C-alpha cells in the first residue's frame, strides 16, 4: 500500500472517531448550524448599510461583496472545523507529553497532529458559505464560465493550503512557546481580515493585506469567479501557497528538534 492512501485511510479513521463522539449531541449540532446561518445573514445585513449610501465601494457592488462574505464563511468554517480543534490541543500535547506518544506513531507526525481532530459543529459552515457565494454570483447577474469556475477552484484550493500552512506554523510556535490558546487568535484574526474584499480598504492597509497575504483567501477566488482576475495570479497563488506549506513544514521540523519531551 502506498503512503498516500495509507495516510488518507488513517486520517479517515481519526475523523470518524471524532465525528462519532460529537453527533451524540444532536440538538447542540443543529443549534450551532442555525447560529452559523444567523451569522451569515448578520454579515450580509451589516454590509448592506454601506450600500444605503453608494452603489459600489471600490468597484464592488453589494452582490459581489456577498460573494466574498460567502467565501469568508467557507474558509472560517474550515478553520473552525478542521484546524482550530487541532491547534487548541497543541498546548496540552506539549505540556502533558502527549506529543512524545504521537511522534512515535508510524505516521507522518505533522499530518497526524494537524489534522487528527474535527469539530462537527462547524462542518456545514462551508456549505452555507458556498450557498451565499452562489446567491451573490446570481444576484450580480454575471454568467460563470467553465474557465472562471476552474480558476476559482484552483484559487480556493490555494487559500485552504495557505490557511493550513499558517496553522502548522502556529503549531511549530506552540511547541516552542507552549501557549497555543493565544496563538489560535492569530489564525482567527488572519481569516477575519478577509471578511471584505481587500480593495474596500484604502492604502496602506490594502497593500499590507495583499502582502500578508489576506487577499489570497477570499478576494482573489471571488475575483476569479466574477471573471475579473489578473491572469498572472493563477501562477502566483499556487507558488505562494506551496511556498507557505514548505516553509511551515520546515518550521515544524525545526521546532521538533528543540523539543525535549515532557513525559516520564
Amino acid at each position, binding site marked *: 500500500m502506498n503512503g498516500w492512501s495509507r495516510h488518507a485511510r488513517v486520517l479517515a479513521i481519526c475523523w470518524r472517531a471524532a465525528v462519532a463522539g460529537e453527533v451524540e449531541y444532536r*440538538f447542540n449540532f443543529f*443549534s450551532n448550524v442555525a447560529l452559523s446561518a444567523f451569522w451569515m445573514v448578520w454579515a450580509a445585513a*451589516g454590509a448592506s448599510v454601506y450600500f444605503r*449610501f453608494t452603489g459600489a465601494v471600490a468597484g464592488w457592488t453589494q452582490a459581489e461583496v456577498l460573494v466574498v462574505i460567502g467565501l469568508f464563511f467557507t474558509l472560517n468554517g474550515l478553520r473552525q472545523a478542521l484546524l482550530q480543534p487541532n491547534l487548541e490541543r497543541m498546548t496540552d500535547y506539549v505540556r502533558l507529553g502527549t506529543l512524545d506518544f504521537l511522534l512515535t506513531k508510524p505516521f507522518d507526525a505533522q499530518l497526524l497532529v494537524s489534522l487528527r481532530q474535527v469539530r462537527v459543529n462547524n462542518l456545514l459552515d462551508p456549505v452555507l458559505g458556498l450557498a451565499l457565494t452562489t446567491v451573490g454570483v446570481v444576484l450580480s447577474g454575471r454568467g460563470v464560465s467553465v474557465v472562471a469556475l476552474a480558476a476559482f477552484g484552483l484559487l480556493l484550493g490555494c487559500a485552504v493550503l495557505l490557511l493550513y500552512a499558517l496553522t502548522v506554523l502556529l503549531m511549530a510556535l506552540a511547541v516552542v512557546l507552549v*501557549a497555543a490558546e*493565544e496563538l489560535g487568535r492569530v489564525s482567527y*484574526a488572519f481569516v477575519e481580515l478577509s471578511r471584505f474584499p481587500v480593495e474596500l*480598504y484604502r492604502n496602506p492597509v490594502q497593500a499590507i493585506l495583499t502582502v500578508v497575504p489576506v487577499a489570497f483567501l477570499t478576494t482573489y477566488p471571488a475575483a476569479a469567479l466574477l471573471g475579473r482576475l489578473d491572469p498572472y495570479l493563477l501562477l502566483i497563488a499556487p507558488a505562494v501557497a506551496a511556498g507557505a506549506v514548505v516553509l511551515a513544514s520546515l518550521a515544524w521540523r525545526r521546532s521538533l528538534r528543540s523539543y525535549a519531551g515532557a513525559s516520564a
Partner: protein
Amino acid sequence: MRDVLTAYPPLVRSATLVAATYRGRVALSLLTGFFPLLLMGVWLTVVAESGPPKGWTTGDFLSYYAAATLLWNLSGDHVVWQWDADMRSGDLSVRLLRPVHPFHQYATNDLGHRLVFLTVLVPALVLAALLVPGLDYPAGPVRLAAVAAALVLAYAVSLLMASTFALIGFWSTQTSNAWLLWWGLGSFASGWVAPLALMPDWLRSVAVVLPFRTAMGFPVELLMGRLDAREAAFGYAVGLGWLAAFAVLYRIIWRHGVRRYQAVAG
C-alpha cells in the same frame, strides 16, 4: 450589602493582578479587538469615493470607531462565558459556598480585567486624539464627567444584561448560542454594526429605547458631542431604567433557577 461592598476592592484588586500577570494575553486580545476598525476602513473608502454619508466625514468616522473600539473592549458581557463554563463543569458549586453571591464574584473578576484594559486603552485613545488629524473630541470638564458616568452605566447595563442571560444555563445547555443570537440582533441597535445615525429611521427610533445603545452607542455619541442636553438626559434615563429592569429580572430568575441547579462536579 455592606459586606458585599467591602468585598469588592480586594476581589477586584486580585483580578487586576491576575490580568496584569498574563500581559501577553491582554496584549493579544487587544490586538484581535480590531474588528470595529475594519468596519471603519470601509466607511473611509465610502467617504473618499462618494462623499460624506449624511455629513459624516473621515474625522467623524475616526472619532466614532476609536471610541467604539474602547467601548467594545470595556463591555461587561464576557461574564456569560464564565457562568456557562462553571455551570457545565460544576465549579459553580464552589462559588455557591462562598459568602459572596456568584454574581459579585464574576463581576469583580471581570471588573479587574477591564481596569487593566482601561489603563492601556484610555491613554491610547487620548494619544490618538492628539496625534491623528481629524480624530477629535470636543472635550470639556463637564462633558468628560458626563461621558465617565455614561461609561459606568454602559458597563453596568452590559454586565447585568449578560448575567441575567447567563441564568438560562439553569434550564438549558444552549446559553452561549442564545446569548450570541441576542447580541447579534442587538448589535444593529447598539451602534456596533454602524453608527445609529446612518441606520434607517425606523431602526434608530426603536434603538434609542433598547438597552443595547446604552452599552455602546450612547457614550460614544456623548463623547463626540452629538447629543444635546435633552437627548443626553433621555439616554441616561433609558439606561437607568434598563439597569433597574435587569436587576429585578436577575433576582427573580435567580431565585427560580438556583433551585434547579444540580451540581455536575465540584
